[in-house]
């Protein structure tokens, strides 16, 4: 096992750090907004889910490269 093969998991881990921070901010803002206006909770929840899928997609791109790009 070469040491260079460690680069794939480390790359995915770095991408996961970024998405963790981004998702934390997004969901935190959504929670705050839901607390301010509970009657709009449904719409906020939908928008939060969609935003979370966007942010998660960037980590998924990094994950794809591990499986599609041979070493």
């Amino acid at each position, binding site marked *: 096992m070469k040491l260079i093969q460690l680069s794939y998991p480390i790359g995915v881990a770095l991408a996961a750090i970024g998405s963790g921070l981004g998702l934390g901010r997004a969901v935190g803002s959504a929670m705050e907004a839901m607390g301010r206006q509970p009657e709009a909770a449904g719409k906020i929840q939908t928008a939060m*889910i969609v935003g979370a*899928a966007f942010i998660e*997609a960037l980590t998924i*791109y990094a994950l*794809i490269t591990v*499986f599609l790009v*041979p070493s």
Partner: protein
Amino acid sequence: MIANAEQNRFRPTRLIVAVATLLVLTVASPALASSLTTAQQTTHASQLFAKAGADKAGAKKEAAKKGNTTKKKAEKLPPELPSLPQVLMKLMPEKAHDIHHNWLHFFRPMYAFLIVFFALVFLSGIYRKRSILPSRAQMAMEMIVEGLDNLICGILGKKWGRVYFVYLASLFLYIVANNWFGQIPLMMSPTSFIAATGGLAICTFLVVQVTQFSKLGFKGVLHHWAGEPKDVVGYIVAVLLIPLHLVEEFVKPLSLALRLFGNIYGEDILLGSMLMLGVLILSFLPANGIPLGLPLQLPFMFLALLLSTIQALVFTLLSTIYILMILPHDDHEHEENAESHA
């Protein structure tokens, strides 16, 4: 109405049988998978060796197309749940080469066709027997269609929403059906194959481009891509904005395809890894070559159902928003968007 109450009572017998079958297959799949991965890898490896050795002319094309015709990749395929062709390859090893060559390659597109066919048959049955007092199936379909109608017309507005509802609602239901179909044991989702999601992204790309060029005209499109310049500074910045927007037009469908593919394929691999973990946990037991395993992948199957629905929703919403961006809308909103681009 009261006389029908006895017949309309919900009898869960078929549901119980279906759920029990699924559970049994889920528990049995660790055994299948751990005995099948060697079969899959050896047959896959032998297939690749045979292909690579047979024709030198096509070898470069295949290597460029697939990217995994090297020896190392053939030995380290990411783990996946077993599928029906692999089970048959294990049961009938003398026909394994035929099954692999003829069936496994076309497995996923064939299942896409089967899904659409049976879904259409089922849904047309509901539509033909519709009445003012709806049955359960009709109520379910009406709920789904009404929910999609609210979603799409809420974004696109009443007039344009009805026009594009046909494409967008079909897209959502198709992606959801594809993704859910892969969670049935021994089945694979067609969307875990980059060609299927790429095809869907190309469909969205075509819809958006045809709408754009037919509604605005070629000069209108260039004007729109340049951020609708109004003064000299606007025209100077337009030189930068047009290539940016052109690249964006190609990147947006690509990101759609990769997002859906990555999520569904990643879920498959997650299930496979959890399955391997389940087998690993019980590997201390002195079984005589019979691999037992805890069904650790059950909660991840439910997670896969939820996440695949969300991904279908995201795909549909993004397609809706791409269509919304090119339809005639207020200039006030568009200037804000142009500033956010530049």
